[in-house]
């Protein structure tokens, strides 16, 4: 499946169990405690990362609150 992360199309292995939390692990996203995630334009509740599925065609933005990455 293909999703768009920070404006770039990214191909991922098919996985029906994939959630936002598992995607952050899979992509080894840095400084997870600081990252904000937008899914299809909506800011996600940080506490719900483990319950929100990621599906083909989704658009995600990983955002940090400062230019230095945290």
């Amino acid at each position, binding site marked *: 499946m293909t999703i768009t992360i920070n*404006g770039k199309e990214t191909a991922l292995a098919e996985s029906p169990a994939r959630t936002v939390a598992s995607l952050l692990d899979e992509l080894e996203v840095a400084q997870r*405690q600081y990252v904000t995630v937008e899914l299809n334009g909506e800011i996600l509740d940080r506490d719900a990362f483990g319950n929100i599925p990621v599906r083909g065609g989704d658009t995600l933005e990983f*955002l940090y609150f*400062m*230019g*230095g*990455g*945290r």
Partner: protein
Amino acid sequence: MDTPLRFDSLLVHGGLEAGPAGATAVPIVQSSSFAYETADALEDVFRGRAAGQVYTRLGNPTTEALERRLALLDGGGTAIATASGMAAITTTVMTIVRAGDEVLASSSLFGGTFSLFRDTLSNFGVTARFVDPLDPESVRAAINDRTRLLFVETVGNPKLDVPDIPQLAGIAHEAGVPLVVDATVTTPYLADGAKLGADIVIHSTSKYINGSGTSIGGAIIDRGVFNWNSPRFPHFETFHKKYRQFAFTARARKLVHKDVGACAAPFNSFLLTEGILTLALRMERHCDNALALARFLKAHPKVAWVNYPGLEDSPGHEVATRLYGGRYGGLLTFGTGAKETAFRVINALAMVKNLANIGDAKTLVIHPASTICADYSLADKALMGVSEDLIRVSAGIEDRDDIIEDFNRALDAI
């Protein structure tokens, strides 16, 4: 490293990333701005999609290395290094309050902070109310619906009162108000922000963290533990939604720190990272020398009074012993009964410097009533614990016998 380092090792290694060519000191990146190959890459950094530096007012690699280490020393979270300690306080308060809000603060504040709260912020519709930090019930009673933060110093400068910070944290948190603690006098070495229960820790890094009197700087440490999702903080709603426990740092970084522009200079950030390396060793000596000098002065027939939290009969001794692990810092005050004799003592000192600073390797004195507190009324001075005969001493790290001999000779002048 997998095993968390202990405090003294964090001072030396914490937050350090490998520098160019294997450099182990923090490189000084003396550049105003940072270039990117493509417009897309710079857009990503501005949007927060990618890590990177843009402009030194917003962030700088040398300053970021300092910030990483400072955050670790206070028990974790994030840090913002600023141009001065007062810049750190101003940025913190402006991030939290809006016109119509109130700041509740200790009545024994450092003069610069007192002036910021009472005289400057009042021009922008923010009211400061002052309470005795040693009276927890009056602190509790003074919190109202408009209170947006409680601000205290770990040890009042120069009053040297020692509030029970964890108790005040409990009172603030019961009311849903963040506790901002200025820990300049104690440093993270005597107690970190986590132990104190502070939500935000302020340091004037110009003092003990620098340690050599070479540069002015400040720091704001957001421990990431306060819940900003509250009707008391409607202006944090968007920031809380996006950044959760780091809503304060996000609001500071994206608005106030960026817009006010009181950023740290890269060279000063380098000097501060160098200073941190020896903080533990220096604090031990500052504390030892201050205690030895306090005991000497207390026994001297020409000295009317001495205040040092390390003296057993000091009002702050019990709380300081409990909170700061048997160390009492480098500041002490004493009096010889009159301004005139205070001046004679200061004028007769040979090695000890007469200047407006604390936390230097050098032993320092000042007569606050005629200098740093000269603009205040007698009533305000009384509130700050500044009497006309008070000499403030910042004990340095010289040989204690040289310090004591200098004061002994100077006291002969009266």
